[in-house]
C-alpha cells in the first residue's frame, strides 16, 4: 500500500490542482492501483469530496465524472441504452464487484494502463477527456501524452451514432486480458481499438471499402498494431487473437445492421 504522511480531502479543484503540483503529492481516486504499490509520498490528495462521481446524459454526450466507479459504468442504464451491452462487457471481467465499487473511470483512463479494458473500449468511441487546467482534448491525443500533474475532471463520450462491440481474451475469467479489442462502426468506418498488447490501447481507423472479405479486413486492421511477448502470451499469438476477435466484432456489427 502506498504510504504517505498527509491526507487531504480536497475541497475544490483548485486546491487539488495546487497540492498536486508538488512531486511528493499523489492523487487518491479509487486507491485500487495505489494499493498495490510500495511508494512513499508526502501528501495524498483525495478527490472524493469534489462531486465528480456522477454520470450525466445530454442529447449530445455522456459526461462521466472522473470519480465514477467502474461499477457505475457497468450498470448505468443510459449508457447501456445507447451502447447496448458494451460497458457491461468491458467491465464485468475486472476482478469482482467489490473491486469495481472502488476503481474509478478516471483512474483507469488517467493511468493509461496496458491492461485497461476501459481505455480500450473508450478509445473506439468518440471520447474526450476533460482536465481542470488543460481543458477538453480527444482521448487518443491524451494517450500519447506524457504524464501530467493536471486533475482529470470528466470523460465525455459523444453520441455520434456509433455502434460498438467489445471482446477480450483472458486466461481465467477475471484475469488481466491477454488481448482486448473494441470495434465501433459509423457508416463505412470502423474504429478498431486494441489494448493489452500488452501495451496500452491504440486506435486504427479502417474503411470497410478497403477490403470486402471480413477476415482479410480484420487481418489488415491487426497489422496496424505492434504486439509484445510476456508470460501471459507471445506477440504472435496476440496478433492472431486480434485477427480473430476483430473479425468477429466486424461480423457482429454487420449482423446488427441486418
Amino acid at each position, binding site marked *: 500500500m502506498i504510504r504517505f504522511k498527509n491526507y487531504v480531502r480536497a475541497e475544490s479543484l483548485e486546491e487539488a490542482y495546487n497540492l498536486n503540483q508538488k512531486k511528493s503529492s499523489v492523487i487518491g481516486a479509487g486507491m485500487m492501483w495505489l494499493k498495490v504499490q510500495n511508494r512513499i509520498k508526502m501528501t495524498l490528495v483525495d478527490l472524493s469530496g469534489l462531486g465528480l462521481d456522477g454520470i450525466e446524459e445530454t442529447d449530445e454526450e455522456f459526461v462521466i465524472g472522473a470519480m465514477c466507479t467502474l461499477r457505475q459504468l457497468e450498470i448505468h442504464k443510459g449508457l447501456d441504452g445507447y451502447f447496448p451491452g458494451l460497458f457491461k462487457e468491458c467491465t464485468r471481467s475486472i476482478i469482482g464487484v467489490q473491486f469495481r465499487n472502488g476503481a474509478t473511470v478516471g483512474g483507469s483512463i488517467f493511468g493509461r494502463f496496458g491492461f485497461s479494458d476501459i481505455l480500450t473500449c473508450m478509445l473506439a468511441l468518440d471520447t474526450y477527456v476533460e482536465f481542470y487546467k488543460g481543458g477538453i482534448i480527444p482521448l487518443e491525443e491524451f494517450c500519447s501524452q506524457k504524464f501530467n500533474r493536471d486533475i482529470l475532471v470528466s470523460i465525455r463520450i459523444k453520441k455520434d451514432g456509433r455502434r460498438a462491440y467489445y471482446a477480450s*481474451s483472458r486466461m481465467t475469467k*477475471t484475469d*488481466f486480458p491477454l488481448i482486448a479489442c473494441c470495434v465501433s462502426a459509423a457508416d463505412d468506418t470502423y474504429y478498431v481499438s486494441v489494448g493489452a498488447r500488452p501495451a496500452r490501447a491504440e486506435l486504427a481507423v479502417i474503411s470497410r471499402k478497403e477490403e470486402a472479405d471480413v477476415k482479410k479486413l480484420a487481418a489488415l486492421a491487426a497489422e496496424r498494431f505492434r504486439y509484445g511477448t510476456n508470460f501471459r502470451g507471445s506477440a504472435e499469438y496476440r496478433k492472431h*487473437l486480434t485477427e*480473430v476477435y476483430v473479425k468477429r466484432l466486424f461480423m457482429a456489427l454487420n449482423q446488427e445492421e441486418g
Partner: protein
Amino acid sequence: MNVKMRTVNTSVIKKDAKALVTGKPVFTDDLAPGDCLIVKVLRSPHAHALIRKIDTEKAKKVDGIVCILTYQDVPNKRFTMAGQTYPEPSPYDRLILDDRMRFVGDAAAIVAGETEEAVDHAMRLIKVDYEVLEPVLDFRKAKDHKVLIHPEDNWESLCPVGADNRRNLCACGGEEHGDVEGLLEKCDYVVEQVYHTKANQQAMMETFRAYSYLDAYGRLNMVASTQVTFHVRRILAHALDIPKSRIRVIKPRIGGGFGAKQTVVAEVYPAIVTMKTGRSAKIIYSRYESQIASSPRHEMEIRVRVGADKNGILRAIDVYTLSNTGAYGEHGPTTVGLSGHKSIPLYRTPRAFRFKYDVVYTNCMSAGAYRGYGATQGIFAVESAINELAEKIGMDKVKIRELNMVREGDIMPAYYGETLKSCALDRCMARAKEMMEWDKKYPSVDMGNGKVRGVGVAMAMQGSAISGVDVASVELRLNDDGFYTLMIGASDMGTGCDTTLAQVASDCLECDLDQIVVHGTDTDVSPYDSGSYASSTMYLTGMAVVKACGEMRDKILDKGAEYLSCEKDTLEFDGSRVWQPAGGLEISLKDIGNKVMCSNNNMLSAGASHTSPVSPPPFMVGMAEVEVDKETGEAELIDYVAVVDCGTTINPNLARIQTEGGLAQGIGMALYEDITYTDKGQMIQNSFMQYKLPSRLDVGNIRVEFESSYEPTGPFGAKSIGEIVINTPSPAIADAIACAVGARVRELPITAEKIYREIKI
C-alpha cells in the same frame, strides 16, 4: 466392525461451523497477544549468493526495534523443515539463517520490533554485501552441475534415499520388476512421451503464521497455523538446539493447508526471537512471501514408456521421474516415490514395470508437500500416456481402462506388494460414464459455431496414511454427567476431522454427537499423532478412535459391574446405561460419570495408538467435457464428473466438498496455475494478480458421486479422500482437449496458446 452407523455416513454439521460463519476470532492472528513483537524476514534478492557482510547497526537503532539476527546469531546445526516422521527422509540442509542464499527469497536476516512500521523501516536500513554466484535454474541441468547448491560439510542425509549433495542430488533410486525392455519390444503399440508438471502453490487463504511466547515455566509455547504440531515441536528443538520438553505447540483454527503447512515454514522465526528476547513474537507471512518462499508442489518431468498388445492389453510400463526440489530438500525424497507408486498400480495387466527417479536441487524456491504429493504429477503422466496409447490403437479411452484397471482382490506388485481389499474403480468408471453420457459425446462433438466439445477421462489412486510409519493416537475421557473428551493429535485444517472423528466416536460409544467434546491439537495435552497429511486422518486416527472407544466401553462395563455389584459378563452397555438384560439392574452413564468423582481408583480414560501395515488406496474416475474454440485454441471447462471410492463416507457432505475442492485445485493445475522464473531466478507469479487461482467462474460445473467399497482395515470401512481428489483433472482435461481439436499438450498448465499451436483439425 460390528458397530451400527448412526451419525457415520450422515452429513452432520461441523462442530466449529457456527463460529466460522459468524466470524469469531479463532485463527492464529486473532489470538496473538496485542504486544507481540512483529517479526519479519529480510529476503535475498539473488537466487544464489554468499553474504560477505551484513551490517545491521543502523537498523538496530530504529526506535522500536528489539532484535535483529543474522547467520552469526543462530546455531550452526542443520535441520529439515519437513514435517515427517523421525528420522526424516528429507535431508538436514537448513539453518535458521545461513550465509549462503539459495533462492530469491531465502532468509538473510530476522528483524523483530514493537510495530510493523519500525520493522519495515529497519529492514530498509540493513545493508547486505552479497557475492552473487551463478544460479542453477534449469532442473534438467542440475544433476552433476559444476555449481553446487549445498556444498557445506554439515549437510546430512539421515536415511538411505540416494542423496548426494556433491551431485545436487536430494534423492535417487528405482526399482524394476520383470523384463521391461523385452516386453516393450514385443508390443504392437508403444507410446514414449515426456510430460511436464510445474510447481504449484497450495494458496490456502490463510497464509503461513505463528506466534510464540514463554509460559509460566519458561517453556517456549508456539501457536501455529500448522498441520504437524508434533513435528513442529521436534523441528524447533533441533533448530534451536533445546530439549523437546521445553517446547509446546498448539494448533488453533487454521485457514487451509493442503500440505503447505506440512513444512515448518514460518515457525522458526518467531521462535528464535522469543528465545533471544524472552518476549512474545509473531510472524504473519504476506501473500507475496507465501508465493515466493513457501513449499509448493515439486516440478516434475516424467518420461513414460508404455506398451500394449494388439488387443489393448498393457504389457509393460517404464516411468522415469526427474523432480525439482528447489533450494532445500523438504519432501523431495518422498514425493518422488508416489509419482510411480501411485500411478503404475492403477493397472493390473503389465507383466513388467520399471520406476526410476532423480530428485535434484536447484536455486528455485524449495518445494514441499501439496495434496497428491507426487501422485498428481505421476498420474498426469501415466494417464496421459495411456490415453495416447488408446489413441494409437484406435480404442475408446474408457475401454482401455475397463480392460486393464486394477480390481479388488489383486495383489499389486508396484504398490509394495499389497493386496487390494477394497476397490470399486470399475463401478466408478461405469457410473462416471453414465453421468457424462460418454458414449454420446466421445470423442468429440462439433458445435457448429466454430467450437468443438471433447471429453476426456482419467483414473486416480492415492494411499491412506503411510504404511508402517504414520502413527495416530487419541485419548478419551469420561466426564461427570457422562460426556466425553476426545483428545486428538490430528489437525483439522477446515477439513472437518474434529467433527468426523467425533462421529466415529459417537457411533462407537452409542451416544449423541454433542456428548463428544473434541480437543485438538496441543502437544502438551494431545497424544502423539504424525499429523494431518498423507490422507491419514480418518483412516488412521479414525481407527485409533475405534480402538480407544472399545477400551472405554470395557472400562465402563468394569465400573458398572463394580457399582452394580455383579459380574461384568452379565452386563451390557448401550451408550446411555450399563444394564443387566437378565436381571434388571442398571446404572446410567451419567451416574457413573458422577460417581467416579468420589472414592475412585480407576480413571475412566482410554487411549489408543494406531498404525497400519497397509495403505489401502482410494480410487476415483474423473471425466472432463471441454469446449475449444477452433480458431483461437481457447478452452472452456463445461462439465466435470467425478466418482469416488473412498470406502465408507463418514460424512457425505464433507466428502463431497473435499472432492469438489480438490477438483477445483486440480482444474487450476491443469489450466491456469503456473510458476515460472526469470533468468535471474525471480518468481514471476508472486501475487494473486499473477498466480491465477480459479475463481468460481473458472471451474465449470462439477458433479460428484460416490461408489463405496468397504475397507476392512478402516473405521466403518473408510479409506481416505484428502488427496486423491486433486489427481484426475490434469489428465482428463488434457485428453478432452486432444479429443476436441487434436491438440495434445504435455506441459501444464494447458493454456489457449499451447492448444492453438497444436490444433490438428
